[in-house]
């Protein structure tokens, strides 16, 4: 197990380095002078030169990469040009919305998908299964931001149960914060839960066809016992993979959903930065998102090793 962990850790570090190089390189590709690009056409040469200095653009690409990556390691993302504050500060503020939103959505996804997938697998071919399959088929097809608009239309405009958008901040109390995130989280979670429930169902049905399920039944286990004691744990292994992938969809989805609900999260930040050509902010937020995806997949890999004893030895 230790060897497995060590290998995964090594691969995690390499992925992070590779990702940072890619992002740095893409930003480097920008035609012309990034400083001039950021300031627009009417900038004075002095201002451009000052920004170049501030951005540390006066060095080789390699040394600039080292500066940037070294800064990242210490939590220093550089200075935002438009906001004139450290990017880390901006991100620290916005992440208080985005991260809880993604986590909330992931929790909802799992809470919905697991029981639904389990029921569909246990009752496969029966009306409950048909209903679940039809509902999830629809759930997959719905774009989350449109679903979000429908939720606003129903729960905010018609029923007035929730506000249509905005975020009171965590200072207003946990309950108020969570309430403001509830509609966005539902909008994010439902399509993903539909996918996960279907994966769960088909994975469970696959394992139910395995020889060891028949062995278990021959021992005297009931259908339900065989499902819960033997199929579930084996069937969860592919479900874990999908969950890892879903986290990146949830993060990306959160960026879009924040726009529907006017939430002051990373999504709003990055789109403002794009319009204001604040490349340092774009670069930093992208790096953060990619970092999160890579780390989550690392965690999934570890969970894989814990769930499947065959992997611990082999790799």
């Amino acid at each position, binding site marked *: 197990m230790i060897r497995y962990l060590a290998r995964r850790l090594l691969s995690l570090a390499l*992925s992070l380095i590779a990702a940072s190089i890619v992002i740095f390189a893409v930003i480097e590709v920008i035609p012309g002078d990034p400083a001039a690009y950021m300031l627009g056409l009417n900038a004075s040469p002095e201002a451009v030169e000052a920004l170049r200095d501030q951005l540390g653009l006066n060095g080789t690409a390699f040394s600039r990469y080292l500066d940037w990556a070294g800064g990242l390691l210490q939590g220093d993302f550089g200075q935002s040009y438009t906001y004139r504050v450290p990017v880390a500060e901006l991100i620290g503020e916005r992440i208080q919305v985005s991260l809880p939103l993604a986590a909330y959505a992931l929790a909802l996804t799992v809470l919905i998908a697991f029981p639904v997938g389990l029921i569909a697998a246990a009752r496969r071919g029966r009306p409950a299964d048909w209903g679940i399959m039809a509902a999830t088929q629809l759930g997959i097809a719905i*774009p989350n931001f449109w679903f979000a*608009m*429908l939720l606003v239309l129903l729960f905010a405009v018609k029923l007035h149960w929730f506000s249509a958008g905005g975020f009171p901040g965590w200072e207003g109390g946990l309950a108020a914060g969570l309430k403001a995130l509830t509609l966005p989280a539902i909008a994010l979670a439902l399509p993903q839960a539909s996918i996960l429930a279907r994966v769960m169902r088909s994975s469970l049905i696959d394992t139910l066809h395995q020889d060891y399920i028949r062995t278990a039944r021959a021992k005297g286990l009931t259908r339900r016992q065989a499902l819960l004691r033997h199929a579930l744990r084996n069937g969860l292994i592919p479900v874990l993979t999908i969950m890892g992938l879903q986290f990146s969809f949830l993060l990306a989805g959160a960026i879009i959903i924040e*726009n529907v609900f006017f939430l002051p999260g990373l999504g709003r930040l990055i789109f403002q930065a794009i319009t204001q050509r604040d490349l340092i902010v*774009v670069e930093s937020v992208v790096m953060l998102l990619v970092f999160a*995806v890579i780390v989550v997949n690392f965690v999934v890999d570890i969970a894989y090793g814990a769930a499947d004893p065959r992997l611990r030895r082999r790799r």
Partner: protein
Amino acid sequence: MRARLPLQFLIGAAIFAAFALAALVSFLWVPHDVTALNIAAKLAPPSREYPLGTDHFGRDMLSMLMVGARTSIAVAILAVGIGMLAGVPLGLWAAARRGSLIDEIIMRGNDLVFAFPSLVIAILITAVFGPSATNAIIAIGIFNIPVFARVSRGAALSLWTRDFIMAARVAGKRAFRISLEHILPNIANVLIVQGTIQFSLGILAEAGLSYVGLGAQPPTPSWGRMLAEAQTMIYTAPRLAILPGLAIVLAVLGLNLMGDGLRDLLDPRLRRARQ
């Protein structure tokens, strides 16, 4: 024995064909010009003249949706094309050299690209080159590459252990030729199914990108941007937000039903169970 076409495939194909037809027709004819603004007719309810009503600029919703279908389908098809053309050869190559350094490099590269959701790629590209439909295609296409590479590698790997591949090697055939003659035709099923899935995901992704302004730019109508424009008027004219959304849902649903039907049809395991 000829397998019966499953019902869900037929339903899905019919729905999607309707959208494809609308998109094709829009090249030749639309009820109203989608670039002409007609403020006098703004927010008109559905009528004989405007079957689905008009938007806040007085443009005909039906025409907008037809042209929007064109945008969505074109972006998604091209993105799937990029993914397949780059991903399948990579996957086949990795499988043919399984366990080698090249396999490792391709698979690690895949993992790396997977860490960039298509929206993030789009953000990066847009930050550098500015928003456009082309950049949306590239962003979604890049994200599709590892999907196809992984799927084709996985399917090819299980074929490489089969005796008929060994027989081809004994007949002196090289890996390239074997991949072309034996592997590719045998994984075509899997690729077609994955293709429909990525197609529907592409439509969703295009809508999302256009919604946040990273996709097709005005005046090109697109379902995602119609939704973005409708958002501010959701209190007064919810119809504007509901129609494009329904279009997306139906198109994606049609494709997914088609994909699932194809999978049932082509999966030999399921076919055997049906016999």
